[in-house]
């Protein structure tokens, strides 16, 4: 981790939430935090080059954007097959997140995927087809009933 200086801290504060939607957003930020626009832009480019910032982008409210159903697929896959099956699962366009995770005796699921669809039927069909193809017999789909929190990380 870099040693963040004062400009980093105030700049990250400005960009971790919403940037101004204006013709000159970084000029606006620079003015607000009292630095030169070029310094702000240079830092931002540095963050992107170094991988601290993946991108500057829009995060959608998927519920209102047509992808209203969010199911967490939790499946039990043989440990020697998890790599191959995980990579296949990750290729599905409806899958946004896919991980191998720790298991417990009472919760033996090791392969997870967040699946977003326009309907529950769509999500179920995706899971059914995939599980059949991969020979996965033990799985759960945990649908989200309520979103208590969805935010982005605040670093400073």
């Amino acid at each position, binding site marked *: *981790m870099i040693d963040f200086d004062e400009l980093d801290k105030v700049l*990250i504060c400005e*960009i*971790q*939430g*919403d*940037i101004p939607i*204006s*013709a*000159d957003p*970084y*000029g606006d930020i620079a003015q607000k935090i009292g630095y030169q626009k070029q310094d702000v*832009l240079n830092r*931002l480019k540095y963050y*992107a080059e*170094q*991988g*601290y*910032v*993946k*991108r*500057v*982008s*829009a*995060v*959608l*409210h*998927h519920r*209102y*954007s*047509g*992808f209203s159903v969010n199911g*967490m697929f939790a499946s039990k896959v043989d440990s020697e097959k*998890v790599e191959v099956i*995980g990579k296949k699962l*990750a290729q599905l366009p409806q899958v*946004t*997140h*896919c*991980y*191998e*995770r*720790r298991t*417990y005796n009472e*919760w033996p699921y090791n392969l*997870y*995927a967040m699946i977003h669809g*326009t309907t529950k039927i769509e999500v179920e069909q995706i899971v059914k087809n995939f599980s059949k193809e991969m020979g996965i017999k033990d799985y759960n789909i*945990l*649908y989200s*009933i*309520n979103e*208590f*929190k*969805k*935010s*982005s*990380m*605040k*670093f400073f």
Partner: protein
Amino acid sequence: MDSTDKKLLNMMQRGLPICEFPFEEISKELGIGTQEVIERIEALKVNGFIRRIGAVFNTKKMGYKSVLIAMAVPEEKVIEAAEVINYYDGVTHNYLRDNHLNIWFTLSVRNNEEKMSIINEIIEKTGVDKLYEFPAEKHFKQEVFFDMERVVND
């Protein structure tokens, strides 16, 4: 929402160019004026399609580790427990799901001490004595993109 809005949403999800005038770059690609791009984005925000436009950080690179945590909370205590959990800045996602393990949240922390102190506080305040930690052992995908040009919801 028209086809220009859908294209705009797809472009903005993929990322704005990191340059002096990002919205002007987008306007050129869409073949409309910068002012129109700004107005369209404002409208998409007001209408609830866009949650935020800003930097997406690599939390790991920023010095944090994230863990998915699940717990089984009795139905009558769910709202109270959700409030306890939401209090922490490191909790960025918190969902009620249809399973006996019904509350699922992500926690990002700087170190193990911070994690344990938050977990212990949650246990104490909610009275749920078992939290299941599901750290990721392997990452296969983390790529949120909703193809708006695929959805029909004019």
